[in-house]
């Protein structure tokens, strides 16, 4: 009961946030990024967290959604929702092929193979002509089928909806037979197989659900940014960011990915835009002309990826089970 | 001598051993018998420092739990693990040399001793460990343990999966090893064989010691007969 109330409050806050905040494109943009990363990481969590299959190639599904949508839109001007649906189909096909190859492998091999598949997808997109190759695809339209693409709110609610659906599926799976089977597979594949669980069926099921959701997010991203190329939507860095978010929040927990995204995305943005340095100066903690102030203003911009690396290392060393792992009761 | 008092151990948050008390005097063969999952292997792992434990394990009045696994080997407590765990891509001789990793000066002498005990290994010097049969691997595993100059040898299910013929060879070897002055702690499911060669024995059930006595006493015990010997 308490849980339902909490979720209701969270949902109400999320829904009303853009209205309360007003039209601030910068803040709304960051919130969209938070929701997108939370949803991506939650979708990954179904496969990685519950089935224990650590895919390092989720960028492939994100890219599949993004590319399918923009290619179909620019070439045939199809309905965006139809494009998204076809994107899901493409992602599922890639997932099925991937699954049939990589699910025979375990541990390190699985992770490495998933990288190889994603790299093959990336390089193919880069080499083909119809994908725009290295030039990427630019969507010139500012509105599509009555949706104003310049407005942030449709994307905010779109991402929120996908996140809600992903969390809903995760919550349902947790309590379902499939969920138990997936967790059995995570704990011990051989034991699960000996209990008569069809490993390949359930792993593929988790992968397809995860890939389909990831693909929808890719479509939304493509429509939101209106320009895609391989380095933005198919890069290994994206796959890693998704995993990092889940691990920092708490792998295999319902809310872990959300917590991870709420923390990491704003942090990355603050480091990127050097808001952190600005805030310290404004709060009067550091004088702008002092050596520290100058260093913060000048160098933090260069060092933000370094800081990101340090945070990653510290989290893995000191929070190996993620933030939610700290609070989880001992079973 | 080995003295264990109030030992608790397990994996992660799951306790396996509860309040174990056990002593072994120098020169004894002691058996710990019990069914699958009773905690026998866990006991050996706790002694050899592979897993953490609470309570007290002392060997010649030195507390073992503060030592790392490799330091415990240095004290002469050598563990021959369940499932042999020999190095599959190394030859027989290389496997044995690894057993003598800490006492390289006695290596040649120990190698001769092992080959005298298991002549079969001498014939197979250059064969890769992974390509040997289960029985041969068990001889190799015990031989490898002997290479480390053990004062106390911990044997985990040496007869598991072996043919009766190999089982005979292995138990014969254990007796020979013991008569050369090595104390032996034997963990077995083969209750009859192991108790027959033991001075004393312990029966372990779901992580607790439920019975103890000389080998003969235990073999004649009604409970033991019913539970393990099918009588």
């Amino acid at each position, binding site marked *: 009961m308490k849980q339902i109330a909490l979720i209701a409050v969270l949902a109400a806050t999320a829904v009303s946030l853009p209205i309360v905040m007003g039209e*601030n*494109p*910068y803040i709304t*943009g*960051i919130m969209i*990024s938070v929701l997108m990363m939370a949803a991506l990481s939650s979708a990954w969590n179904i496969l990685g967290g519950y089935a224990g299959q650590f895919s390092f190639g989720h960028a492939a599904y994100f890219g599949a959604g993004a590319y399918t949508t923009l290619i179909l839109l620019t070439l045939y001007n199809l309905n965006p929702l139809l494009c998204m649906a076809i994107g899901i189909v493409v992602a599922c096909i890639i997932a099925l092929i991937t699954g049939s190859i990589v699910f025979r492998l375990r541990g390190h091999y699985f992770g490495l193979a998933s990288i190889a598949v994603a790299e093959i997808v990336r*390089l193919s997109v*880069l*080499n083909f002509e119809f994908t725009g*190759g*290295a*030039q*990427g695809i*630019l969507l*010139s339209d*500012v509105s599509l089928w009555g949706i104003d693409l*310049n407005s942030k709110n449709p994307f905010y609610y779109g991402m929120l909806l996908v996140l809600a659906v992903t969390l809903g599926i995760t919550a349902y799976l947790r309590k379902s037979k499939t969920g138990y089977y997936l967790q059995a597979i995570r704990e011990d594949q051989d034991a699960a197989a000996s209990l008569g669980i069809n490993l390949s069926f359930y792993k593929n099921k988790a992968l397809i659900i995860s890939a389909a959701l990831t693909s929808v997010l890719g479509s939304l991203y493509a429509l939101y*940014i*209106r*320009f895609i*190329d391989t*380095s*933005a939507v198919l890069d290994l860095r994206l796959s890693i960011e998704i995993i990092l978010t889940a691990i920092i929040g708490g792998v295999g927990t319902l809310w872990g990915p959300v917590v991870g995204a709420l923390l990491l995305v704003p942090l990355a*943005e603050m480091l*990127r*835009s050097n808001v952190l340095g600005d805030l310290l100066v404004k709060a009067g903690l550091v004088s*702008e*002309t002092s050596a520290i*102030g*100058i260093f913060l*203003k*000048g*160098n933090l*911009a*260069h060092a*933000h*990826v370094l800081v990101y690396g340090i945070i990653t290392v510290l989290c893995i060393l000191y929070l190996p089970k993620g933030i939610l792992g700290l609070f989880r009761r001992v079973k | 001598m080995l003295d264990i008092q109030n030992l608790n151990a397990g994996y992660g948050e799951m306790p396996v051993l509860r309040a174990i008390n056990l002593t072994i005097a120098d020169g004894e063969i002691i058996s710990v018998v019990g069914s699958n999952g009773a905690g026998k292997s866990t006991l050996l792992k706790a002694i050899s420092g592979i897993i953490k434990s609470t309570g007290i394990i002392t060997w010649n009045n030195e507390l073992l739990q503060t030592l790392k696994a490799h330091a415990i080997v240095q004290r002469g407590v050598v563990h021959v693990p369940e499932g042999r765990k020999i190095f599959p891509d190394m030859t027989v001789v290389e496997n044995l040399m690894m057993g003598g990793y800490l006492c390289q000066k006695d290596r040649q002498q120990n190698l001769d001793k092992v080959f005298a005990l298991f002549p079969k290994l001498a014939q197979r010097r250059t064969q890769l460990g992974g390509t040997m049969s289960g029985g041969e691997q068990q001889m190799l595993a015990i031989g490898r343990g002997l290479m480390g100059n053990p004062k106390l040898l911990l044997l985990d299910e040496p007869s598991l999966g072996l043919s009766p013929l190999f089982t005979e060879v292995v138990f014969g070897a254990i007796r020979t090893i013991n008569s050369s002055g090595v104390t032996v702690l034997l963990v077995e499911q083969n209750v009859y064989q192991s108790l027959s060669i033991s001075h004393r024995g312990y029966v372990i059930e779901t992580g607790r010691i439920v019975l103890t006595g000389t080998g003969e006493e235990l073999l004649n015990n009604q409970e033991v007969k019913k539970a393990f010997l099918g009588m």
Partner: protein
Amino acid sequence: MKNKFVSIVAAALLVFPMLVQAAPVKIGFINSITGKEAQIGENLTNGAAMAIEDLSAKGIQVELVKEDDGGDPKNALAAYEKLVSRDNVIGVVGPYTSGCANVVASRADQYQVPLLVPAAAKEEITMKGYKNVFRLNAPANVYSKVLMDAVKVFKPKTIAYVYAATDFGVSTVKTAQENAAKMGLKEVANEKYQQGQPDYRPSLSKVKAANPDLVFLVSYDADAILLMRQAKEIGLAPKAFLGAGAGYTTAQFAQQTEISALVVSATQWTDDVNWPGAADFGRRYKAKFAKEPSYHAACAYEAMRIMAETASKSKNSAALRAALKTGSWSGIMGPVKFADYGGFTNQNNHPMLVQQIQSGKYETVFPAQFSKKKLIYPFKR
């Protein structure tokens, strides 16, 4: 490193006193300080910093808000939206990469804050009719056009392409193919490569086997040197190597005289061009940053100068847009005017230059009105 620190200190010191005076106008600068393009980004940073410094010496004050996009379009968009909504800038210079510039340009009309693109080459940025997007540099098609024009008189017959699989590489070669077709050049080899490979010999061997008159190259700093080294190794010797911008226009490349001699390249700017202040800028840049200025630095300098100068006279974005649209400037990049022509909107019809490495130095050799030296053709070692 030390120089960079000095420049940062200098920039910070410059920004500070301005805050005290009656709030100067704010302009934004989006650049790739981190990520794959960071190296070129640094040249832009330096150029922009010098522009602000020069203006301040002339008593023109603006407050510059710097943003990093790391080469990621999503970050570039966030940076632009931060600049327009949180920092309230009236104009923005940047971003550097074509991908980021594309995304930001497509939002400029929404927020009505003028964007001046200093160095991104992709044509479509100024071909969508955006009212608030201005571009200083010449787009991709000019790189190949000017190179072909320079060698036209020698009547080459065949051409081979070797280029990086990047946006710039692919777009430039596409336009080069169009220009080559117009000249009746026959394409005998087309080798696209992924950056960062250690071994280009197989591709170059193929090109050598095709024996072309011209080898048209698009590469970045490091792979340019690698490619030319391996070309020398296997004995690839066409009548001319034509390098489109980037890697073939760096001082580092010119210093490798063994492999770079007589390579022809297209560039937006040289320090021996007869545009006002170009030579002086080159000298001062070298003194300040202890390295040769690249054309990216010059583009950023001029874009920042034009933006800051115009912004300081305009009090808001609308006035700034009008002033950019109607104004004309003359400086280290020659005459600048944002015009509508040939499908472009607010595009400076910048004449690109062709330079050749002669005795280890870049010499401007084409077009004739900007150059002192003559093109050496065919290429002989």
